[in-house]
């Protein structure tokens, strides 16, 4: 468990963050400029905060009150940078092996061949970074961090510098990293879909402060916490794949409620997470009839939250889980929505994009 408490003042900005990152993938989630990278740099030791305490399991990395400031090279945290930062004078193999020279001999370490196989970089080992594509560089960077026998992996927007196709190329490798490697990961991102796919817990950051933290399902389903803005909001559902129908629709089971989604690339029986974007959810007081949408979930309104704009965010609990719906204030008034009201949430099948499923 990583425990972080840091305060730092920049000339025009200050950071005051307290959070814990349990095992699994913890996402530091917030807009660009919210101070996420500074917090990760403080964990890595690249930024020495004015005040704070950072500990990993039983080890103190930083305690300003006791004048303990471990240098970065003594922290043993694998850092995956946004821009890769591969060493241009070394081959991919040299980059991958770099960290293992400095790891303590008795440290538990990943097997070189297994990491190479997991990341699919066997063909690239003898190339220099200059001859690698952006996605290939980032996969080597992931392997390099992994092979330095780290106690934790820090990833600072590892996909942000890549285009959509490259992101789709890397995401499965990050999921394998989460599922096959027991090292905890602190993952910085401003992308809801990345966080929804990867994170087991979420720390929402705004203006250098933690606004909410907890399991991913709770934080992303909380209408009060919209670190990426209302437009990007969306709750997470967990569902089990039941069958794949011949017309290209997959049927899933979420808490006893059937969900129909475009073909999910998973085998029946596997558990997946689905991000349901709030702006894709329609609310109806009565059970709608004669509607093209396939997914109709009965639920109870928990919260109606309005901001400055014409939109309101409705949080409702269904048997499938918490769902967020973004509708206009006018509709909310016409439907007389308030906590406790029974409604139906309608989700179009095709609105759930492949990158929302993982």
């Amino acid at each position, binding site marked *: 468990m990583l425990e972080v408490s840091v305060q730092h003042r920049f000339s025009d900005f200050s950071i005051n963050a307290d959070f814990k990152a349990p095992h699994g993938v913890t996402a530091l989630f917030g807009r660009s400029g919210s101070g996420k990278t500074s917090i990760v740099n403080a964990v890595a030791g690249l930024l020495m905060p004015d005040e704070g305490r950072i500990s990993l399991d039983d080890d103190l990395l930083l305690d300003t009150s006791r004048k303990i400031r471990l240098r*970065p*090279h003594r*922290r043993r945290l*694998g850092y995956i*940078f946004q821009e890769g930062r591969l060493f*241009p*004078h070394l081959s991919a193999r040299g980059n991958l092996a770099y960290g293992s020279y*400095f790891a303590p001999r008795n440290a538990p370490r990943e097997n070189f061949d297994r990491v190479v196989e997991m990341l699919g970089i066997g063909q690239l080992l003898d190339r220099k970074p*200059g001859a690698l594509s952006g996605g290939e560089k980032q996969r080597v960077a992931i392997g390099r961090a992994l092979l330095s026998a780290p106690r934790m992996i820090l990833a600072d927007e590892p996909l942000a510098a890549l285009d959509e196709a490259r992101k789709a190329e890397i995401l499965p490798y990050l999921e394998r990293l989460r599922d096959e490697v027991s090292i905890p990961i602190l993952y910085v991102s401003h992308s809801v879909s990345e966080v929804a796919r990867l994170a087991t817990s979420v720390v929402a950051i705004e203006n250098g402060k933690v606004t909410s933290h907890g399991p991913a399902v709770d934080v992303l389903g909380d209408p009060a916490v919209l670190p990426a803005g209302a437009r990007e909001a969306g709750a997470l559902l967990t569902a089990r794949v039941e069958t794949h129908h011949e017309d290209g629709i997959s049927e899933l089971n979420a808490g006893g409620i059937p969900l129909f989604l475009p073909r999910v690339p998973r085998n029946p029986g596997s558990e997946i997470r689905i991000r349901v974007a709030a702006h894709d959810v329609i609310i109806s007081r009565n059970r709608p009839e004669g509607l093209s949408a396939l997914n109709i979930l009965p639920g109870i309104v928990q919260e109606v939250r309005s901001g400055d704009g014409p939109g309101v965010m409705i949080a409702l609990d269904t048997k499938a889980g918490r769902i967020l719906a973004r509708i206009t204030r006018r509709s909310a008034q016409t439907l007389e929505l308030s906590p406790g009201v029974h409604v139906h949430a309608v989700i179009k099948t095709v609105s759930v994009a492949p990158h929302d499923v993982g």
Partner: protein
Amino acid sequence: MDWLGPEEWNAVLLSLRVSFWAVLCSLPPGILVAYALARWSFPGKQLLNGLVHLPLILPPVVTGYLLLLTMGTQGAIGGLFAEFGIVFAFRWSGAALAAAIMAFPLMVRAIRLSMEAIDPKLEQAGATLGASPAWVFLTITLPMSLPGIIAGTILAFAKAMGEFGATITFVSNIPGQTRTVPSAIYAFLQVPGGESAAIRLVIVSVAIAMAALFLSELVGRRVASKVGGRNA
């Protein structure tokens, strides 16, 4: 090379020896000073920068005279060295010292520029992978600045081969001891009938300078492609 007389031959060999030692001994401090100027901030940094560059701006005669005052057997530092049996005044070692001092700014400048071109974020990445600052320097900074180190070395060698003013002021112009190629050319031009010898040494000088330039270009290009060429 029969066409060089023994005296001229002596001058060429002496120049090569002086330049070789001048460059060899100034390379480690040159790399250190370049690194300090490129990466560290410390009080007196501008002073150090000024001191390093001083020989480039001062008249060489002044540099030579200052060397004579400080490094001569009566000088503060020269006296100390003399205690250990190292005498600079009027010896070839003094010529090497003068050449090293005069070539130092060129060497530091070339190395510093190539070190400043290295993204400090790469050095940070090295630290997060467990490399201590010394290892980061040895495995990242040093190899990546190799093109600059080679360029600086060759530039300094060429400068040392041509050093005249400070050398002749500090260690005079003693045949076989401190008479380097430039000093020899100067001496030949002072005596009647010495012009043909002077011309021969001029040709040697030009040949060595051209070879140095060619070599630096060749090695620089090969190393640059090895070190990565395109940025990662």
